[in-house]
């Protein structure tokens, strides 16, 4: 009997060594066929953290200050979703740009190659923690390739498709929106990058390429920036993004 009970504790789970290979909840043991108390409560705590991330807000002042190093103008925009509750129930409003923001953008219309847009999405905390680390790798790649960059735009209460309107108004050939992804239990800090060639309002997901899970414990900043840059070069070469643009980087060697 002692032996059986001992076998239930998480430290003694024979599957414990699997934890070395993944952040997934392997090796958590069992009591009967159920999850042991300690692990069950740890899960609840992680869910509480994720719920809190959904309600976090962009640190505009801090981020704007950090972006100064890139010598790019920074604009602060809003979607048509007035607050978080409305954002959660009305994704259509999160995809649209508030009128005053659209007017603001018209003053910056140019002839840009790439428009970088940063939105809170479902985890402003992800942006607050990780976007500068990603930009530190990404922007030098753009600069070295002589790509002309539009002002960096923050969008509050923004969804992916808001990038179509922003980049279209700026007259950019391609948009990259860096957006806080829906928090998971083990990661409330993931950024997703969505690329759209020829951005204009009305496009849907098949027109985009997505690189997800960008964070220090997931897809790290440098490989993420390399991948984004690779896809952008391919997008300019093929004049498209979306399902017609495959990530063949692994096949051709890198």
């Amino acid at each position: 009997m002692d032996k059986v009970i001992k076998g239930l504790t998480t430290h003694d789970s024979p599957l414990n060594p699997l934890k070395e290979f993944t952040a997934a909840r392997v090796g958590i043991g069992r009591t009967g066929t159920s999850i042991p108390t300690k692990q069950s409560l740890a899960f609840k705590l992680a869910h509480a953290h994720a719920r809190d991330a959904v309600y976090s807000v962009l640190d505009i002042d801090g981020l704007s200050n950090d972006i100064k190093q890139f010598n790019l103008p920074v604009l602060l925009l809003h979607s048509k979703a007035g607050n978080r509750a409305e954002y959660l129930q009305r994704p259509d409003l999160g995809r649209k740009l508030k009128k005053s923001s659209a007017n603001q953008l018209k003053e910056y219309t140019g002839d840009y190659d790439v428009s970088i847009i940063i939105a809170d999405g479902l985890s402003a905390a992800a942006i607050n923690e990780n976007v500068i680390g990603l930009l530190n790798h990404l922007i030098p790649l753009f600069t070295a390739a002589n790509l002309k960059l539009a002002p960096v735009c923050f969008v509050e209460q923004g969804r992916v498709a808001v990038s179509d309107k922003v980049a279209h108004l700026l007259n950019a050939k391609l948009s990259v929106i860096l957006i806080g992804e829906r928090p998971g239990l083990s990661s409330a800090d993931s950024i997703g990058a969505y690329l759209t060639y020829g951005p204009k309002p009305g496009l849907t997901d098949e027109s985009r390429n997505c690189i997800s899970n960008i964070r220090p414990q997931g897809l790290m900043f440098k490989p993420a920036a390399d991948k984004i840059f690779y896809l952008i070069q391919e997008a300019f070469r093929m004049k498209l993004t979306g399902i017609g643009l495959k990530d063949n980087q692994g096949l051709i060697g890198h």
Partner: protein
Amino acid sequence: MSYQTTIGGKVYRFDDLKTLLAKASPFRTGDALAGLCAESYEERVAAQITLADVPLKVFLSELIIPYESDEVTRLIIDSHDLNAFSLISHLTVGELRDWLLMDETTTSILKSIEAGLTPEMVASVSKIMRNQDLIAVAKKCEVITHFRNTIGLKGHFSTRLQPNHPTDDPKGVAASIIEGLLYGSGDACIGINPATDSPSHVMSLLWMIDQLRQQFDIPMQSCVLSHITTTLELINKNKDAPIDLCFQSIGGTELTNTSFGVSLSLIEEAYQATLSLKRGTIGNNVMYFETGQGSALSANAHHGVDQQTCEARAYAIARKFKPLLVNSVVGFIGPEYLYDGKQIIRAALEDHFCAKLLGLPMGMDVCYTNHAEADQDDMDNLLTLLGVAGCNFIMGIPGSDDIMLNYQSTSFHDALYLRKVLGLKAAPEFEAWLIKQGIVDKQGKLTSANEGSLYNHFGSLWIK
């Protein structure tokens, strides 16, 4: 054609069939977002009362999305079987509900009318059914499919082992697979959602699972859930590609599928290509489809049709290609479509019922996201209800936590709980393998004594 009913002197008029269907739908945020839902509790019941009197034959003449403009409508109408319909052709929607619930309406009778039902008929009757009704009728259906094992037998309950990893790291994926197998998971398939839809990534994952399957002689099948064009490209480039199943997400309107980058002809091409590999040993159900309420609205492609009816229309596509597995990803889409546990549970029971009645091997991704008003307790309720309803399979994920897709589904433990409390077993061929390996005993109970040696046995593949 318009429909109407009078309640307490107030006349409720519904301009057309799709409006009637939308207003009769139990409340969910997606229909409110689309501006389609009933405006009061009374209007909703008025619509349900009106809908109950609509003859089933009407659904063959009044099409909610025009035949000319939508290939899903054309598929539904062109594949409708009047012979199979004849047994129920005289019924109204309300009478169909009563008929479905009759003790005399047996499993084999339900099977005989499958091809006579359209998605709209099935969606309609679901709207006037309580959760209990959806469970009771689905329980009578039996949809069995085969590839390397047998899924869907009454008294059996399978899982898709979902070992996702944020960077598709093969060792990370393998760790979750090993854990899952040692918990008796994976009889529906081992199905990985790749983090990046890259052909080379997909191929290396496919090779790895196939090596595992062959080394341990496991009667199971695998799938990497990439876009169908990626699967097709891999097959066309390499006839030895270890592709058991071809996956695709589908929706209930042509425009929705356009937004997914697919069409019926593309799915047909991929279906034929996958069949040509001839990898199934005891059957050739090679397709795996995922669906989910809200996708049509999300793609702005719903034509004013409510999300549950759009969902049921997707099942017409699925059944054309004789899939091994179909599941709705019910709570994955988020609170703007299904707001809370109550809405998610209702939608899942509707999806399971509608799909089973149409003859699909329906499973369910019992799940929620962190921005929905739901938690594990809601999933426990849904899981148990679906087990009672005879659901073919659910997902198996380490500790319920998908660290790649960032949502919560069901754990390996959850499936074992359900098998235990309801006396359900894994797919027979897979269970025989589990017993042979010493993972479970002859009663299907996990054998804790062997865990250490089993781990060493399987782990030796990757963990040195």
